[in-house]
């Protein structure tokens, strides 16, 4: 019986790979959960595009500061050692390659690392890009967290994205609800799969050709 990872389990799995001392930007939605699971012996510095380094967890109810919010407009706190800066400086950090790791959600990812995560090209819905293109173009590494397939069951990992791109060839790694997949010059390489999933089944749910790493292993979530 195949059990896809829950959103929290995806976040837990990613958290294991976030290096000690890294400067990390968490995209809106699923990526924000990662902060809850980074091992306590690692010191990770969270960056927010609205001018914060050293973001801490959500404040206790009643002590929220309406002027202290993250990119998702949720209340946050500031850790000792954290600081505030101008919006333009926040993007100097992003565009200038100072962010070690951007953890982002995605609508689609292509086999060459193309990322689509800002627009479904629906003319009735006003598009919103926010800082997605800057993060995708500027961060040293871009890792994607997402469900392996869409709600309609259609693959989100494709040979070519059909939605408008956020940036071409920027994704290094995909953490999906079914697998951990590296984007390599030779294409997509499956490093890990959830228990009981056969490679053929994974390929079937994927719109691009996969290869299985020789040293692949089942996804392990520390619980």
């Amino acid at each position, binding site marked *: 019986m195949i059990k896809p990872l829950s959103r929290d389990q995806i976040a837990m799995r990613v958290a294991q790979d976030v290096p000690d001392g890294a400067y990390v930007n968490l995209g809106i939605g699923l990526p924000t959960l990662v902060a809850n699971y980074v091992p306590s012996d690692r010191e990770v510095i969270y960056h*927010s*595009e*609205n*001018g*914060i380094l050293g973001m801490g967890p959500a404040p206790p109810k009643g002590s929220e*500061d*309406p*002027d*202290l*919010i993250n990119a998702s*407009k949720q209340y946050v706190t*500031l850790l000792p050692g954290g600081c*505030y*800066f*101008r*919006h*333009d400086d*926040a*993007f100097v950090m*992003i*565009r200038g390659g100072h962010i070690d790791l951007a953890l982002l959600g995605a609508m689609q990812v292509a086999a060459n690392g193309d990322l689509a995560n800002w627009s479904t090209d629906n003319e*009735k*819905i*006003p*598009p*919103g*890009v*926010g*800082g*997605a*293109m*800057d993060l995708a*173009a*500027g961060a040293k590494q871009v890792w994607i967290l997402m469900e392996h397939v869409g709600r309609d069951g259609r693959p989100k990992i494709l040979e070519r994205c059909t939605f*408008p*791109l*956020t*940036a*071409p060839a920027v994704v290094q790694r995909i953490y999906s609800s079914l697998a951990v997949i590296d984007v390599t010059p030779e294409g997509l390489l499956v490093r890990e799969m959830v228990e009981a999933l056969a490679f053929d089944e994974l390929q079937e749910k994927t719109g691009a050709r996969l290869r299985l790493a020789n040293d692949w292993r089942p996804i392990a979530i520390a619980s």
Partner: protein
Amino acid sequence: MLDKRVKSVAEAVAGIRDGATVLIGGFGNAGIPVELIHAVIDHGARELTVVSNNAGSGRTDLAALLAMGRVRKIVCSYPKTSGSVAFEELYAAGRIELELVPQGTLTERIRAGGAGIGAFYTPTAVGTMLAQGKEVRRLNGHDYVLEMPIKGDFALIQAKRADRWGNLVYHASARNFGPVMASAATVTAVQAGEIVELGALDPEAIVTPGIYVHRVVCVPNPQQAGQP
């Protein structure tokens, strides 16, 4: 004597013309100059171009200005947020022009406007539809898009404290677009929670030097932005 204090929000936005470009600070509901925006509403200026990260939420401040049909065009990075009903209605009805700009490009274009930079090349949006129609150039082995500066006739921003020279400090992430917008407008109007004596602000910690500020009005207890 250099004294940038004005007595009312009306005075702070006086002279704003129909067709003006107005830079409005804030990200989410933090740092939005609610009272100054309402002063623009009361002033009556129309056909405005608004440059702001978001496109208002709820029914007050920017959302109210939009709902009254006073904005011809909005330049922003993320118009659709929870509660951006006013904007969405105008957009669906084709009654507002939207120029969507990646957030880092938006801040950098405003900075260029304030810094006297004629244009700049940025890697952001290369290979995407937001670079369509723009010059792309290969520099040092990478592709970049040419982007133009943004300047405002007015900038409306919120600060925590000010002095009569217009020096400003902010609070937490409400700082956001304030400093960069202050530098890029002909008239920068600030609503400050408090106005202190000259010399009371630490010279090592002033975030916006007064040279960028033209009018300061004290609004001790500002409304929260984005109210429904």
